[in-house]
């Protein structure tokens, strides 16, 4: 596991590269994170996915978007379009590190929505796409974020933020600025669904109302991608410590993703 900074000096992105640990090497994958508290809760699962992929013969790179995590910048400067560009930068970097010609993109929640956008325009560079519990409708996602609560406690109304700080709301310590919120609301993966690359996997562990819409659009457009439902622990939701199922990792979903990519 190598932590390092890539990208340009004025937009330094923090990433963690993991080399494939067995031969033959099957490919390279960029993992795209969710946002905010979802990122924190899902961190362990994404780390485990990276490890399992490396053990299966994949080089992996996971990274923080500009303005999040350890990457440079402030959330107030962040834009979704910038994050999409960050994914492209991560892809180039992984291609440079490994000498591969193509990468696969694996996105979780918001990361899936962003990855899908890139995959549709990136052409030959993207070998395959995994959308793990993707954010389908931005409105739905924003609503869920507003309802985030500390594990086991009652939902608290998010505190509004000062306009000079970009406005918006504080979601469990993560600044959801007006700008980002409005850009998120504009996300509509269902509309993009017909253009998804041929080699795409959509896997959902947590049913959402918008899944029906997605299924309908895929059927209408006669796309082969089905949505696989694998009942498992949604990693971006944290169960409180006393809960019987706390601490679990979504092993079934992880195994399915590795199996499908390989």
């Amino acid at each position, binding site marked *: 596991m*190598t932590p390092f900074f890539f990208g340009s000096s004025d937009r330094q992105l923090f990433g963690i590269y993991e080399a494939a*640990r067995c031969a033959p090497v099957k490919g390279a994958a960029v993992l795209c994170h969710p946002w905010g508290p979802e990122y924190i809760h899902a961190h362990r699962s994404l780390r485990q996915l990276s490890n399992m992929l490396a053990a299966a013969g994949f080089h992996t790179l996971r990274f923080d978007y500009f303005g999040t995590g350890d990457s440079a910048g402030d959330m107030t400067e962040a834009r979704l379009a910038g994050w999409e560009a960050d994914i492209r930068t991560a892809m*180039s970097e992984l291609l*440079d590190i490994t000498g591969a010609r193509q990468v696969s993109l694996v996105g979780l929640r918001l990361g899936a929505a962003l990855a899908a956008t890139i995959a549709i325009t990136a052409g030959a560079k993207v070998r395959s796409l995994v959308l793990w519990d993707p954010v389908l409708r931005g409105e739905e996602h924003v609503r869920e974020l507003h309802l985030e609560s500390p594990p086991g406690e009652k939902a608290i109304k998010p505190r509004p933020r000062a306009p000079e700080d970009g406005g918006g709301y504080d979601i469990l310590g993560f600044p959801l600025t007006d700008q980002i919120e409005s850009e998120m609301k504009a996300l509509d993966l269902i509309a993009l669904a017909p253009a998804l690359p041929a080699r795409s996997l959509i896997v959902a562990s947590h049913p959402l109302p918008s899944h029906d819409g997605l299924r309908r659009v895929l059927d209408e457009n006669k796309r082969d991608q089905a949505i696989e439902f694998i009942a498992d622990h949604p990693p971006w939701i944290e169960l409180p410590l*006393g809960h019987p199922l706390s601490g679990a*990792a979504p092993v079934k979903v992880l195994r399915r993703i590795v199996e499908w990519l390989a």
Partner: protein
Amino acid sequence: MSAGQLVARLRSLGVGITASGERLRITAPRGGLTEQIKQAITAQKAELLDLLAEEPADSSDQLVAISRARPLPLSSFQQRLWVLHRLEPESTAYNMVTAWPIPVALDAEQAERAIRTVLGDHEILRATFRDDGLAPGIHLLSPEAVPVAIRDLRDHTETDQANAIRADISIATLAPFELAAEAPVRWTVYQLSPDRVAVLAAAHHIAMDEWSFSLLRRGLEAACGSIAAGTALLPPPALQYADYAAWQRRTRNDATLAADLAWWEAKLAGIPQICSFPVDRSTTESQSGSTCLFAWDADLVADLRALLRREGATPYMALIAVCATVLRAYTGQGDIVLGSPMGMRERAEFESMIGPFVNLLVLRLDLSDDPTFSTLLTRAREAVLDAHDHRQAPFEGLVERLAPARSFDRSPLFQVAVVLHNASEESTSPIDSGGAIHDLTWFAREVDGRIEGSLEFRSDLFNRSTIERITTHLQSAVRAMVRDPDRRISQISLLTAAERTRLIEQFNATAQELDPAPFTVQFERQAVLRPDSPAICFEGQELTYGTLNRRANQLARYLGSLGLGRGSLVGVCLNRSLTMVTTLLAVQKAGATYVPLDPGFPVDRLRFMLADSGLAALVASDEIAGGLDVPARVQIISVERDVSACDTRDASDLGTEIHADDVAYVIYTSGSTGRPNGVAVSHGALSNFLGAMRCAPGLAASDVIAAVTTASFDIAALELYLPLTVGARVELVASDVATDGIALAQCLSTANVTVLQATPSTWRLLIEAGWQGRAGFRALCGGETLPADLANAILPKVDALWNLYGPTETTIWSTAERVADGEAAISIGRPIANTAVYVLDSEGQPAGIGIPGEIWIGGAGVAAGYHQRPELTSARFAADPFAPAPGARMYRTGDLGRFGDDGRLFHMGRIDRQVKLRGFRIELGEVEAALETHPAVARAVAVARNPGSDHPRLVAYVVYRPAESLTASEARAHLRQTLPEYMIPSVFVALDVLPMTPNGKVDVRSLPDPFRNAAGLPATFQAPAPGLEELIAGIWRDLLQTDRISADDNFFEVGGHSLLSLRVTAAIERQTGCRIQPRILFFQTLRQVAAAVQRKQSERITAR
């Protein structure tokens, strides 16, 4: 010296001395008693007895018989063997088999009764070792339950009887024991005549050692005597081995044990993973053993003894020193680790107990400073005495502390052991073993003034011839030691004269008469022979021999008209095309030297090469020439204008005089100081190479060769020129096709290619793209190490696979090997025609067969030198002292290699900082220098790392200037300005400071490896060890409904959750009585959890 002083001196030497009645009890490390000491003791015996009688007796460690109500305990030695047995039940390495004739007149039935008596007397002979869940325990069989086979050989002749018993011994050595169910000794009684019998005893080392066999024999003969005479049997012994095992536990003072283990841990910290002779095979099947005999004559031994007297050392110490010396020569390692099995029968009571009283001691010697023999002897002495002081720490404890990741195919901590039997020990019948426990065990004994014995070795790893060679080298070493003990060990030669002749002359008998005509003349002959045959094809276009020759002649005349000829350097910077090949031919025909420049290189690099080489002219496209800032004195020959304007010129052969010494080409290779160097190769060398290749692998007019290598690498000459000397066809492949497996496979089949030369990386691309090969295909592979698995993947698809080796400085390739199926280690073969290969040690002398050294290459292929680098040339090229011809030169490759028995060479890595990545030669220093030109970089170190799964990658470690840093992308962009793509590091690691060794060099070993799992997450499956780990793994498997649990798994990461974790802890409590906190399952691995349970258990036991 007074008795008191003598005792003090003895104890300081590690010799134990106590009084036991009227006898002196002396325990000394193996070979610790020198002649002087023995005489001193004898002389002062009376005084010593008086003195020692006054010492307080140690009463706390009485040996008593323990209760037989519970399962009996195992000694630590037995525990270790039990674990090994559980993990490898089929192993016979610990079998010990021998047979004796009984000197008492009795029949088989009486002998059987005698055996049962002995069985009754010694419990260990009927002990079964069962897994009691948490630890093994001994359950005894009754004497009647142990089978005794009886064979009637009365009707056999004596010879047949001996053969029959011999045969049974062999069978018995290879019969595994089922320690849980049967006794550890198997018996056969042979009736040889009505009143003569022989007995065969086949034992497992868990119950016996060599001394035990003597005791057993004596006991058996005594019992036979009593039974035959009808007299009373001797009473059974009062104490048994199990009592010793219990005593061992009881008296194992935890404080001293901890201190001893801590001492060993410090002593052995950082020992090399493996310290052994290079194996001939890597083992995939089960282990097997064999023996090789040796003897040192009385004269040599007498001289040795004289030396030892002077130096105050013992024969055992000499053996250790000699073994270490030879090991160092073979491995190049300075840190040498040897095993020293030690008998532990230190109390009178142990002397009559049957059972294994053995501990393994580890001796570590530092030879890295090239000591003299004398110094080495002293170090051996210290090691032996120190080890003896700490001999109580059980070997198993050491292994657990120092080598927890056991690999079961080599013995832990040390792989080579040395044993010296005292002449006084009885061992009149040889004991056969069922295998070799270590890679090599050197058994020696002193007999009648000689030293003789055997080397027991793993025959699945080593050829007998290798061990025989090691035996002669051991003798050479001791001869050298005796002759001149003040000589440094690197200066001794282990070679015999015969070996030397073999190495220098026989292995290099490559003299052959080849066509000395320069390549251009050889080509012109073909053009006359077959003017209409296709010579080169590229992207659908074709040039026949006739056309190619004419065009080349015309261009050559043009070059001549510009004043270019012998001594002129002409740069050729062209994309791959028919024109490129024509130009290369034309320059040579004009008598000039060509310098290939890859248009894909960064501009800066090309500019440097232009300036450095002193070109007189450059052939390039307008576009490229324009971007290059070509100096005024260099004539630019434009492809678009000048080359095509040649077709009006005279197209006949020029007949230029070309001498063998004239330089054909100058090719640039990566330089360690930051700038590339040009290697100048003569026509004579080139012609020799082409002639040699025509013989082997060989090429015919009917062949089609695919040329995939860029012209700026010298191996392209094989692809472009070799075919043109035999009338074959060249299929010139574009570079984007050459790097795409599928496209290349396609091209090979469409163009009916029959020969391809490529690097292993390219071959892998082809194989992974599904290339199927074809009948009659010849595969040539070179540029970097050919792994066995790749060779095995290629072989079925082709008629022949050749592995080629050689640096640019000795003209393209210098050795060749036709690879055979199924070899574990791929050789780089034998020198080609008129070429010599030497493997030399640090003194410039030939290293023995099997011993690594630096590869030097001599003969017709040695280049003229580096262009305009006289100092570098004299540093790397030297006079060849071994060649018969005067003025012969040889080149120092910087590669490590060793010879096999048959003269085939094996490559063993680099001596310096040059690496091969995907076939490209890279001087790490050049990458570092390029990085350091960036203002933000203070220091940089480049290292090639092997991710294990993929081809090696370059990693750059960078120390930035204060307050500066670069992202990986920016660093790469900077390097791309001056370095070709293949020299750009994959990963950049920022460091605050570079780790340094004590002598001021960068400590490359301490640099973090980005491809090693920093988080310690497991890469491979680790089976849970028998006992607690297995118990807990079973609980997890049940609850998680899964088949495989690795010892490094974390409960939650394999699918567990909090609720299940409670059930885990409940089950553990039920089965072990220990309650652990469920929360430890969150972050710990199975192994760690088992250790925690273990600790809880010990706490409970001591608390009672």
